[in-house]
């Protein structure tokens, strides 16, 4: 058994930022456990730019963004264990992990930060009819083949789902000489960032087919084509609209799922919408001393917000370790009328800082208001020109406003069109 003050599970942008923040707050014994061979998480394969505009005020590639944190880490005494997989987090915060050099590791930690990130929804979950041949892969897997291994995963590509990775890969494959025939999106709007639709599809004349899905795959060994169809208001394929599209590759960008198997095994209850643990304003879960941040908590649109959130969790963990963290009566948050969820799910009434409530909307709205209400009283109202499901939004609550609310009250956030 090795003793640490803080064990951080995951060395992507979330884990690194949380560890660095806790270190900055004076926490001495910190370990980061990362399953990949390098730090950086998924940023390592995101060689496109667009990272860091908010946090660093300049446009960086994924590896550059991660590199800044890796460099900061190197100047600290934070212990980094890569190629190390966490197998279990016990209720007393003992972390069991495994790697080639240490074998089986038992780490006793005063606090734990969960920063495992998320995974892509695979084909099986979609129930697409047809064959199960090669050439069907998630956009992230394809990205890894191109950017990390340097191999072409396909020549004629159809992309299903207009999530950001799908959009990025449409451009990437085109630049590598592949023909990207179309991006199909089940919903009547894209799930990706507007800037990605412009820069990755429009600039390359790649058609975005909304309200369209892939209903069947064809081919014997390697994929030979897909059948696409329009969908109705209930997202069901409309008969007679089927169209055969020859292609050797189907890339899926149909959603991200927080990787919470460890959290679930540790007994944490997950939010039904975010699929992440329920947390307070410092991202402390319902288990004392266990914090969560980044995509394991909620799928983010921008890494800059991951960093910001993870610093909050790192600060929270540091406060917890020092015995300074407030943990008492709470108010809860709830999204209604177009607001799908809120993070954090609860806020300590006596919190010592202002709190940003993060959320996503369930549809596209123009010229709408975000209204925050509690006990029938409107606390805050904010006009927005445009709200899209692909982009995270937030409202800022002042700590004295929170302090003025009766305990156990509910803060609701809604859209008013």
């Amino acid at each position, binding site marked *: 058994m090795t003793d640490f003050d803080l064990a951080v599970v995951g060395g992507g942008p979330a884990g690194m930022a949380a560890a660095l923040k806790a270190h900055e707050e004076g926490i001495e014994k910190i370990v980061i456990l990362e399953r990949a061979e390098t730090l950086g998480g998924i940023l390592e394969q995101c060689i496109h730019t667009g990272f860091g505009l908010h946090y660093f005020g300049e446009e960086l590639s994924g590896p550059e963004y991660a590199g800044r944190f890796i460099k900061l880490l190197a100047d600290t005494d934070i212990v980094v264990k890569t190629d190390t997989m966490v197998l279990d987090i016990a209720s007393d915060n003992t972390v069991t992990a495994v790697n*080639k050099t240490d074998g089986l590791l038992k780490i006793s930690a005063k606090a734990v930060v969960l920063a495992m990130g998320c995974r892509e929804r695979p084909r099986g979950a979609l129930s697409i009819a047809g064959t199960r041949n090669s050439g069907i892969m998630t956009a992230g897997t394809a990205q890894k083949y191109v950017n990390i291994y340097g191999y072409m995963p396909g020549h004629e590509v159809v992309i299903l789902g207009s999530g950001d990775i799908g959009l990025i890969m449409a451009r990437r494959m085109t630049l590598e000489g592949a023909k990207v025939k179309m991006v199909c999106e089940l919903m009547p709007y894209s799930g990706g960032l507007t800037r990605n639709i412009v820069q990755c599809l429009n600039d390359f004349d790649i058609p975005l087919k909304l309200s369209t899905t892939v209903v069947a795959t064809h081919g014997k060994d390697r994929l030979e084509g897909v059948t696409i169809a329009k969908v109705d208001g209930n997202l069901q394929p409309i008969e007679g609209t089927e169209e055969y599209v020859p292609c050797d590759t189907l890339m899926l960008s149909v959603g991200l799922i927080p990787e919470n198997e460890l959290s679930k095994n540790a007994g944490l209850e997950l939010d039904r919408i975010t699929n992440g643990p329920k947390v307070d304003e410092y991202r402390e879960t319902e288990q004392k001393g266990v914090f969560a941040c980044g995509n394991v908590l909620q799928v983010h649109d921008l890494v800059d917000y991951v960093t910001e959130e993870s610093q909050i969790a790192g600060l929270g963990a540091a406060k917890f370790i020092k015995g300074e963290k407030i943990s008492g009566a709470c108010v809860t948050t709830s999204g209604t009328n177009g607001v799908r969820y809120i993070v954090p799910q609860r806020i300590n009434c006596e919190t010592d800082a202002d709190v940003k409530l993060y959320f996503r909307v369930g549809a596209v709205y123009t010229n709408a208001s975000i209204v925050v209400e509690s006990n029938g009283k409107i606390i805050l109202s904010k006009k927005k020109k445009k709200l899209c499901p692909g982009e995270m939004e937030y409202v800022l609550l002042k700590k004295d406003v929170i302090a003025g609310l009766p305990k156990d009250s509910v803060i609701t956030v809604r859209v008013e069109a």
Partner: protein
Amino acid sequence: MFGRKKGEIMTYDVAIVGAGVVGGLIARELSRFNISVALLEKCNDMAMGTTKANSAIVHGGYDAQPGTLKAKLNVEGTALMPKVCEKLSVPFKNNGSLVVAFSESEMEHVKVLYDRGIKNGVPGLSVIDRDELRRIEPNISESAVGALLCESAGIVCPYELTIAAVENAVVNGVEFIRNCRVQSIEQNGDYTLKTTAGDIKAKFIINAAGNYSDKLASMVGDDSIDLVPRKGEYYLLDKSVGGLAVHTIFQCPNEMGKGILVTPTVDGNLLIGPTAKNIDDKGDTTTTSEGLREIVEKALKSVPTVSPRNAITSFAGVRAHPVCDDFIIGWCEKSEHFLNVAGIESPGLSASPAIALYVREILSEKLNLTEKEHYSDVRKAPVRFRHMNDVERAELIKKNPAYGRIVCRCETVTEGEIIDAIRAPAGARDVDGVKRRTRAGMGRCQGGFCGSKVVEILSRELAVPMNEVTKFGGESKIIYERTK
């Protein structure tokens, strides 16, 4: 000891065509004797046909009519299965099965099945009422009125059983030849099989070619085997809902088969299906939106809490339904040393250990079988990191650090296990082969994270470039040329 040398065509005593569960277990049984045996498989791996896509059930044996080969070999095979699985280190679970009745008239049918089962010699049968049913199967539908309980039924992983049987056969001297599709058979004295892997000579041929056994028989002039390809589609659900069924839950059977079942798998997932549709193309393992809809609709009748939202994959298999409605096992009338083992639809998996013994029996009529001095019917259990405790894990990694690197996160599969699967006798040659042997890529992310890692390990172990690694042989390449 019976290895083929380059340029030389050796004559095998026996060539088994088809490395499904039937061919695999026959090969294992014959490996006990002082004969040379080749197991020919048209695909890049064993268990690639009906064996890899079926309900994975070890049936009690109450379905088939008394007096049929199906009835006899089902009951015998099911009795043999636990021991065979133990010897081959293949997980088998004796979870029992239920045929659920939803009306009094169905209850009558349940009683017919009970009587038939007793006639067939099925142990552990009883008819249970609504209360008992709810007690032993808590998630069963409210509308169920009773059931036939068969305590001797179980579940097994059919491809794991086949892989283990072939490994065991190979260790005992059988030659496993992949990518070996028989194109024609010539006979002057011995047989010469013209295959995609070259000519192969044999004194005897055992036809275990599954859906293609009619075609193989016709190569020696035997057109008597009449098969109808029947497709069955399935949903495999996540382990988080694996506990929704304790027993294998059948509904009352109809003329197309045993209907839609809901069952746990030995690996802890939940399996629902199959549909039953006669098709023209034997190779048609496509799933259809109608089929997938039908599965859910009908499965809901048994267990109302089943949901396709928990699906991790869907698949389809084609079974060889014999028009005569019984297994076709025996000497071919047109060719003296050609033994048909055809029309092995359900309960073929359950019967397979008994089929192997039965075939050996028949073969011994014409071929002298003397036992080898050195033979082992035991296949050593592969390392399963996920089933070990911390002490065992620590010990294992100390011995070989490759077990300290987790490649598949969802199923907790280590690099060491993947290397073992590739280096095993008759080991994995492609991504799906690794998946079937280790479960890497079988979990909820379906290989999203580990797929490329597995390709990398295969590439290294097989000493081929990454872009020559396939998903399941043939043209199923995963990646193409290098980027510019």
